[in-house]
């Protein structure tokens, strides 16, 4: 399941065997990008750094529970990061609305760095997202990069909640079909 390159699953197994070097290797591999995502979502670098610390402690403590037959090690690590960030976001009371909506416009295309990053895998999702129109792609990016819920997206886009929900479900169904194709 793991693509060519660093073997995240093997490193997580080593963490389960209490090999701290393995954790450091995972950290060196992923922390810079994880930090970028956490800063993007939390919009506060010190908070993002706190979360990143917690995440690596969680990786260490839960490594023995990672089951490679369920998915890739890298997905597992990022799921820990995103759930942790989402917890923090839910605990924060307010989000700066206008900034975030503006940001969503920028989010729609790959960055130039993407092409030069040798760790970059060819992502099916990018191709599939391209097939979606903006009103369906936008909310998915708002959720991923900013952790907005259905209700928050409806509010931010001044669109009825039911409309947002069905639009997102439609988008996810289309993505799913595209990803399986």
């Amino acid at each position: 399941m793991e693509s060519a390159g660093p073997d995240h699953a093997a490193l997580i197994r080593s963490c389960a065997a209490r090999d701290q070097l393995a954790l450091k290797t995972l950290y060196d591999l992923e922390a810079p990008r994880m930090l970028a995502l956490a800063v993007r979502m939390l919009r506060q670098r010190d908070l993002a750094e706190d979360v990143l610390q917690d995440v690596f402690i969680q990786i260490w403590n839960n490594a023995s529970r990672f089951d490679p037959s369920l998915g890739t090690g890298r997905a597992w690590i990022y799921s820990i990061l995103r759930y942790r960030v989402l917890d923090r976001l839910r605990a924060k009371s307010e989000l700066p609305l206008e900034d975030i909506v503006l940001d969503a416009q920028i989010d729609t295309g790959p960055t130039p760095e993407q092409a030069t990053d040798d760790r970059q895998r060819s992502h099916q999702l990018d191709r599939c997202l391209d097939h979606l129109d903006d009103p369906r792609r936008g909310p998915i990016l708002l959720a991923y990069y900013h952790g907005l819920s259905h209700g928050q997206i409806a509010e931010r886009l001044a669109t009825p909640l039911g409309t947002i929900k069905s639009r997102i479900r439609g988008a996810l169904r289309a993505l799913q079909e595209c990803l399986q194709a």
Partner: protein
Amino acid sequence: MTIPDSRADQSVLIAEYVLGLLEGEAAREVEEWIRTDRGAAGMALQWEDHLLALSDRMVPQEVDAALWARVAERLAAQPQVTTSQRREDAEPSRWDRFWNDVRMWRWASIGLATAVVVFTVAPFLTAPDRAVPRVAVLQQPGQSAQPGWVVSVLHNGDVQIRGLSPLPTPEGRSVQIWTLAPGEAKPRSLGLLADRQSVVIPSDQIGPVQPGQLFEFTLEQAGGSPTQLPTGPILYIGRIVAAVL
């Protein structure tokens, strides 16, 4: 909300959860489902894997070196995992082998260390404390005849480490002080010795000191171990005993 029957609808619901779109009861229900159902957990990780494409659009940011140091510190402060959680087939890490060696060494010399405490350390224990004094004598591995350093817990909980003879630091290196309490997985650094013959570690830095707690000095690169764990040879080592005088 209930979990849909069709796999396609299940997958969409899980994607909504993974993206963080669900709130309240709906989020809790899907979370519980993922926790208890392998199929659901697999779908969640599949979505997470696909969505990595979005994380990979992020330009990596430089991470402050202090951040890893804090992670390592927190790992060191954590209680040790039980053996049953460990993989049987796992190669023991360099670190585990290191501590196994330490344990072997300890059994060889602990009896003598205890005896030395009574005679050598008694003059230091001046505090009229109701508690049983706690002390450790640090010796060079394999050189059990000669106590080198004495660790004593003062009445206010501070820990004093005193050398019976000076320990000059070799050029370009540092002598680092460590402790490992019973049940802790990794030793904690207590700082560098820096040519001092007496060091006091404040109680709020060291926390409660228990019988059986290890203290040791290691020879590290200048400035201390880069990994927040001892990497160099042990210069002195010993274990806290309750000294009944």
